[in-house]
């Protein structure tokens, strides 16, 4: 009889630790993801809001991530119950939901992502539940829910949103925030960054877990704001490696 697979990132956060998630947007294929195993990431983020991740490939991609030991997290494209629990049924251990702007929207995420008594996730056997006889009784403990605070209205409603239980990570994203603050395409605008920092501090002060997309350069700054879930991706790492390789070849 199988035990339900432990959600590595959720466990680390629950123990007061820090989780580092590999952003696999534009970095894909089950084969490439499985080869990340030696990096021992806590989680791998599959992009289904803006990228090619959807119901036809979540099974394959999350299987590869299961074999790495990381938690597969899928960002879904909308806050809709059927989309959220179908993604979990196909094998995601975590869900990230974009544009959660109100307490009601945050509650809807929990209702969709958790079985009773916490929510009303559709009852079905998840891929993660294969061979786990009591899956629906234990699934909530290994399901990670993350919401994106990324519109200025969500920042205004943040105190109310933070009252919603059973959300693991409140992730503040600067891209859409910049757009809703009148600074489209300028996520690093000082006004945007100051709202990001303040929001992260408010989340941490409320005793909840803050998450952020970071670069290697600004990660320490976010750590200081209380972030415990870090998302970082490979393009800059590949580019740095390539630049260095060419430099060494050219002497």
């Amino acid at each position, binding site marked *: 009889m199988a035990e339900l697979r432990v959600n590595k990132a959720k466990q680390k956060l629950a123990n007061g630790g*820090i989780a580092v998630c590999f952003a696999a947007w534009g970095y894909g*294929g089950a084969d*490439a993801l499985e080869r990340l195993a030696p*990096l021992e990431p806590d989680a791998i983020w599959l992009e289904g809001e803006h990228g090619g991740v959807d119901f036809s490939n979540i099974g394959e991609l999350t299987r590869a991530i299961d074999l790495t030991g990381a938690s597969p997290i899928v960002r879904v494209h909308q806050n809709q119950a059927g989309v959220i629990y179908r993604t979990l049924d196909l094998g995601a251990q975590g869900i990230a939901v974009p544009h959660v702007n109100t307490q009601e929207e945050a509650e809807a995420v929990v209702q969709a992502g958790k079985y009773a008594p916490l929510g009303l996730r559709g009852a079905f056997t998840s891929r993660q539940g294969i061979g786990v006889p009591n899956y629906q009784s234990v699934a909530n403990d290994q399901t990670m829910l993350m919401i994106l605070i990324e519109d200025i209205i969500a920042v205004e409603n943040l105190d109310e949103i933070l009252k919603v239980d059973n959300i693991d990570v409140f992730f503040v994203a600067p891209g859409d925030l910049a757009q809703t603050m009148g600074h489209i395409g300028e996520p690093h605008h000082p006004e945007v960054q100051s709202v990001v920092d303040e929001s992260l501090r408010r989340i941490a002060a409320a005793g909840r877990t803050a998450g952020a997309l970071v670069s*290697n350069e600004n990660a320490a700054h976010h*750590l200081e704001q209380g972030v415990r879930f870090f998302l970082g991706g*490979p393009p800059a*790492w590949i580019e*740095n490696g390539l630049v260095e390789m060419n430099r060494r070849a050219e002497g």
Partner: protein
Amino acid sequence: MRTLRKNEARARLAAGKHVIALEGLNDADTIERLGPMHPHAVWLEGEHNLVSPPNIADLTRAADLAGTTSIVRVNRVETGIIYQALDLGAQGVAVPHVDTREDAETVVQAAKFAPLGKRGMYGSRQGIGDPDFFHKANDETLIVVFIEDVIALDNLDEILKVDHIDVFLVGPGDLSQSLGHLGEPFHPEVTRVLEDTVRRISAAGRIPGTVGNHENVARYMELGARFFLTSALPWIETGFDDLRARVRASR
């Protein structure tokens, strides 16, 4: 009227410059996003990995759009496999285990149209819209052969007499196996043989290549090598480890 896409990697080699072919990224979305980094070439792995006729067109289209030369390593010295990879859109083929002069001649016969060879007649994806494709294709087709068995070293002088092969790539992995050092591609004896082979290729006026990384690229450039098969994965690991260290996260 469209004209046949230039083979940038081959042009660099012809100009005496080095070429870095990035491997381990066998995914169209990943490859297209490499564009801004201007890699010389992407290596699509079909000897050991999932690259095969059903996905070569998609993968090489992404490389075309990224402006990088696509090179497919085919599974074996076999005429039909070699020109099918080219017809599907590869700008270069790499052929493993070329052990004899006959093997090397077979590769050229398969990859080049008359009068150099007898590549099967068909309109390649690269030739779409260019009425003169069959007369230009040979000039834009890169051929890499692997020297990676002890028997190929014994036959090297003969192999090096075969014209129209752009790169003679000395592969440390299989070489270590056939030298009795399985799994030790950096064993001193393997390195000694590898360096000696690179020198011999260079001394014959041909272009040597090998598996390159930050540590060895300067050394092999000195010995005359100009083509480097390079994995981006160590760079990704370095970047991810650095991020983890900056946020004081544990594995």
